[in-house]
């Protein structure tokens, strides 16, 4: 493998077509799993399935095209958005009840005057907290995968590449 200067992978029509068909359905299934209230599932499970769809796309089409779908400028925003949502809801419960409720007690929001407290809790769990957890987990796992797989042009790699060429010639 050191001697050839050819392509690293070949294009395969079957795998590309099937991947292009499967990725949207995997993402819809991930959103279904993320709402964990009526069946099995939860925030972590849905986030990991979503990250799996990004990994499938990247493995098939190459890392440059995969990085274009999830650009690096979105990385900082999506990483911390889930955590902001979760901790923010907790602080909101303290602020909105003027110091009478505890942190993360969802029944203290004024929404519980309109619907019953049990309904408020179910709404907050399934629509705010789980989606926040899912976003953070998805972005972190995709970022870890791209970091582990990127063959960058740092100082060490440049020296190694030069060394290979000299040995060949």
């Amino acid at each position: 493998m050191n001697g050839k200067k050819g392509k690293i992978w070949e294009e395969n029509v079957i795998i590309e077509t099937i991947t292009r068909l499967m990725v949207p359905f995997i993402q819809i299934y991930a959103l279904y799993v993320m709402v964990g209230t009526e069946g099995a599932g939860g925030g972590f499970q849905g986030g990991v399935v979503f990250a799996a769809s990004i990994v499938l796309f990247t493995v098939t089409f190459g890392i440059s095209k995969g990085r274009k779908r999830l650009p690096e400028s979105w990385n900082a925003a999506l990483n911390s958005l889930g955590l902001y949502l979760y901790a923010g809801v907790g602080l909101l419960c303290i602020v909105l009840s003027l110091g009478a409720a505890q942190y993360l007690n969802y029944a203290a929001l004024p929404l519980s005057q309109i619907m019953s407290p049990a309904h408020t809790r179910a709404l907050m769990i399934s629509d705010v907290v789980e989606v926040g957890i899912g976003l953070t987990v998805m972005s972190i796992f995709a970022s870890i995968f791209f970091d582990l797989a990127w063959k960058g042009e740092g100082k060490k790699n440049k020296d190694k590449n030069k060394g290979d060429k000299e040995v060949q010639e």
Partner: protein
Amino acid sequence: MKPISAMALLFVVFLGALFIYVSEDIPDFGDPYSPANRYVNLHISIDVGADGLEDSLRAGVIPEELSSRIKARGFPSPSETEYSVEEVEGGWDVLIAKEELLYPEPEKYYFLKEEEEGNKLVVYRYSIPVRWEEKCEEEIGVPNMVTAGLADYRGYDTLGETTVIFTAGIAVILLLRRRGKL
């Protein structure tokens, strides 16, 4: 074999022998009355010799001696908060209402049972999942007990866990961004 492989094998065999030694305390597979699933014996008992004990339990009053002994062990004692006694098959349930701001509902805490030998009344303590299984639908409204436990009953732990994932991502970024790309 290399010397470290032989030493590791001996160490692993010794550890296996230790695990055999403690295996009699592990509950059976599928036991519905193990301490993790149902209740734990607190070894606080009182003689059933006194006549008025059963009548007072039916009327909903717990004798002072039991309350003080429960409190001396560090558990919440029934005589200081509101409590009620219900009769179920095999014993009596004691429900205690803790002082919470928005949901002061009584929950099942202790289970009093009569043991045959020696005519004693023994106090058991319910474990927490019993309350989850019974109250999950009406307190939270989510049929899935695991999600209700993760996001509402134990929501603080989930906040810490999301922070752990976030920190792992930041650690990988700091380790692996090559020079000039961060």
